């Protein structure tokens, strides 16, 4: 290819690559996500690039999680804690989330999961929203939301859950912070009992042994073998050293005329 086409070609490629990168999430934001937040696109996006409420808040806070925590820690009238609690501290207190799950749970049966939220002094945090999730793998890996609940007067949030996995399920409880308290996350493993899976994989069609996916591979192999044989003919054409002399050409034409 002449050199004069290379520069514009590279420029076009660079533009296309740049545009595609522009459409993707900026990696710098991932690095800023604190440990107690979900490190995935779902934290800020409904579906990239559309922002959810958290994403809009993050953007309004100048893409700073620190500023966002400060904004969210502003007291609201409706979420005032019950009488007798300590006045709101100027600095956000650290919190502890204690997740309580049964040791062994029969798969497919409903269980109650509890999470107690308390501050660093051990006092319960009342009226806080705790979200519960379980990691799932369905085309992509992520945390599947179970439910959310508010902590009661004892600081306990309760949800009901039906585990459907095999052997064990990880439960994640998360408090996203606010009202003068820092966010926190807690994880625990729920052991599941029961050997019978809740779904069964079975062959819906019993077919002879030769009717399988290898037939596809065989058919494709036959076609591509034919292609390779064809390309071998082209290589042979290229390598042909025979020279056609004018005498040979005239003889060929006489043959055609005689016919």
């Amino acid at each position, binding site marked *: 290819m002449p050199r004069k086409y290379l520069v514009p070609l590279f420029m076009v490629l660079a533009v296309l690559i740049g545009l*595609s990168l522009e*459409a993707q999430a900026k990696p710098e934001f991932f690095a800023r996500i604190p440990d107690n937040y979900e490190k995935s696109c779902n934290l800020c996006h409904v579906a990239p*690039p559309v922002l959810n409420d958290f994403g809009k808040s993050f953007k309004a806070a100048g893409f700073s999680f620190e500023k966002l925590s400060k904004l969210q820690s502003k007291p609201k009238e409706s979420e005032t804690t019950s009488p007798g609690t300590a006045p709101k501290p100027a600095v956000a207190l650290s919190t502890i989330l204690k997740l309580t799950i049964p040791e062994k749970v029969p798969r497919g049966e409903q269980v109650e999961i509890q999470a107690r939220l308390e501050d660093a002094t051990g006092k319960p945090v009342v009226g806080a929203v705790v979200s519960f999730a379980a990691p799932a793998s369905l085309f992509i890996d992520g945390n599947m939301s179970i439910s959310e609940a508010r902590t009661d007067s004892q600081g306990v949030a309760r949800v009901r859950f039906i585990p459907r996995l095999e052997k064990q399920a990880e439960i994640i409880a998360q408090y996203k912070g606010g009202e003068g308290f820092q966010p926190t996350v807690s994880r625990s493993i729920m052991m599941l009992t029961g050997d019978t899976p809740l779904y069964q994989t079975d062959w819906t069609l019993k077919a002879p042994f030769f009717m399988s996916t290898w037939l596809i591979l065989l058919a494709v192999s036959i076609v591509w073998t034919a292609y390779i044989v*064809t390309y071998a*003919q082209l290589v*042979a054409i290229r390598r*042909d050293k025979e*020279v056609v002399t004018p005498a040979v050409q005239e003889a060929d034409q006489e043959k055609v*005329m005689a*016919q």
Partner: protein
Amino acid sequence: MKGITDFRLRFEAVVLSPLVKSSRSYKLLVTVLILIVLWGAYAYSTQLRSGLMVTGLNDRVSWGFYITNFVFFVGISHAGTLLSAILRVTGTDWRLPITRMAEVITAVALFIGALMIIIDMGRPDRILHLLMYGQIRSPLIWDLISVTTYLIGSITFLYIPLIPDIALCRDRLSGSASRFQKWVYRTFSLGWKGTENQKARLEKAMGIMSIVIIPVAISVHTIISWIFAMTVRPGWNSTIFGPYFVIGAIFSGIASILIVMAIFRKVFHLEDYIRKEHFEKLGFLFLTLTALYGYFTFSEYLTVGYKLEGQERELMNLLFVGQQAPIFWSFVIGGLLIPALLIIFPRTRTIPGLVVASVLVNIGMWLKRFIIIVPTLQVPLMPYDFGHYSPTWVEWSVTAAGFAGFILMFALFARLFPIISIWEVMEAHEEGVPHANSISDRGALRPSQAQES
């Protein structure tokens, strides 16, 4: 001998002349097409930056214009397979002057169709996931394999019979071609000299590809139909989708060939070589396929409408009397009935009549692909509102760019390479095969007559 030489000289002059100089209208056409393609590229860049939210696609109707274009373009790619491969295998010689046009339609249409799939993906880099995580049990993987195989096969099938003509251009146009053209001819002629060994190799390669490309082409459109038919959605859950799509593809492919033949015949003054009999023979084939496609369509909707299982009732209402009724009936009347009438009656079975019928069929078949895809997605599978789809300027622009790109690639091909297979027509002419080269009555002599003279 003199007759053959005269014919050859005149034939080569007519067919090779567009390669040497281009008219002002050609340059204007190419400029306009490039501008449309660039506008489509800009629209796509908008989609890349902002995501699929700039299109009318949504969580309910996730396939729209792009997939319609994909199915349409892959459909018309059957033109080359039918005319070039099937008629070659059956020894039908009247195809010779038109095989190359058909083969170019195949290669270019497949390329544009495959591009539409990538455009439909909001994140085109994720196509790598098909290779990394693909399941061989998925119809999408079958589609990837078959379309890729067909694309490579059709490009190969286009190139092989082109070699002797490229060599001819290398030898005949060395004085008048541009530097780029000379490089192309020198490189891609593979040192063709017309030796016995080379001819034997070429025939063998063409023979292999002619046979292999037929099942590949049939498999491609069958597999594309299975992407729909392997679901349980109303309108898609059908056992006849495989042959239905194949017949539809050949149907629209023939319509495309007729349009291309008429254009090149007029523009390049090929009236002596692409004659009325070619149009008539294709016209009868066209009529047969119109009847077949109409039969399949009738059968499909009758069996669905008679039983009305599940959400089929909602789908049929949507098509017959609902929101999509204008498009559906436009396809039936404009894309099937009117073309059939134009072909049936001798008074309208003229070249202009066939071209009008072909244009109507192509428009109708695009609409048919649209009403296969979109209304089914609109019908809710649970008690919920119907989905909506309204294509945006981005989709319209990309669609226009797709069609412009198709025409542009064709125009550029015709500027570089002979649009009729010169060596095959000459070979048939020298063998005295009737109708093979459509020698004009006022044209050159047959070999026996040449000897007498």
